[in-house]
């Protein structure tokens, strides 16, 4: 199973980005192999439509779960129709590695 986490930087020590569409990086975690791939977000400075474009990028990586601080209204319905689970962590100061730890705790 693959999980996408929005990140402010390209290392596991970076914090969770509170925005989905205009986050700096997407961390794609493979829960089986524990491999992490950091993808810079090309829609970071978009004026409009950053959410749907980012959703497309994330969906193309076959993730089943997305962790972020918040999601916009356009994004929510896209992910719902793609059956991708959304996880919101409001006002979180957690780092990527802490979130990965939380996710692993489950498995």
């Amino acid at each position, binding site marked *: 199973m693959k999980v996408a986490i929005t990140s402010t930087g390209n290392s596991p020590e970076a914090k969770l980005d509170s925005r989905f569409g205009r986050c700096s990086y997407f961390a794609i975690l493979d829960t089986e192999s524990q491999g992490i791939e950091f993808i810079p977000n090309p829609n970071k400075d978009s004026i409009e439509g950053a959410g749907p474009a980012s959703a497309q990028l994330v969906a193309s990586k076959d993730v089943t779960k997305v*962790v972020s601080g918040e999601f916009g209204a356009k994004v929510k319905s896209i992910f*719902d129709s793609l059956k991708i*689970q*959304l*996880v919101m*962590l409001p006002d979180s100061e957690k780092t990527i590695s802490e979130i990965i730890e*939380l996710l692993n705790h*489950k*498995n």
Partner: protein
Amino acid sequence: MPRPKRIRRVTNPPHFKGFKPLGLPDGGAPVVINFEEYEAIRLSDYDLHGQVEAAKIMGVSRPTFARIYESARRKIAEAFIDGKNIVFEGGKVYFDSDWYSCNDCGCWFNHTEKEQEISSCALCGSANIQPYSEDDDAQLEEVCQCPQCGKEFQNFQASDCNGDICPECSCHMIRKSMSPHRRMRNQKCRMQ
């Protein structure tokens, strides 16, 4: 120009594309069932909700729900009798899902696979979760108030409160959440 259609909420879209009749050569135009019609059938005949309840879940009025449901049944009947294919497609809908919050890690998550019961947090795996509901506003909408004595009653019909009459002072009731200037207009009892 008619008022635009309200966008219908679909909480559980079908996970396959349609139906095919057995033992017929493939041909003919398929019957297109909208997602909203699929949802109406699911809510009424599968989850066994009443029409008032189902209409509320889809975010439309009760008469509109009845029309969607009626149209769905006619399409299904047409497909059954004429042996046509059924495809699920289109409709003025948006997809929605149920949200839960976790009391341990403070996260919010939604639930996309309705078939599976949710029992643990999507992030930390804790069982200490609770469903999130936004019923507070909706409940205010359903309370009727008597302008004379101020008594409140639950409006079970989901209808206009104006049709209901207060048993104490036989006034026409008004909706509790009604805006003040409409409220004034409806205070017929005081005028008399």
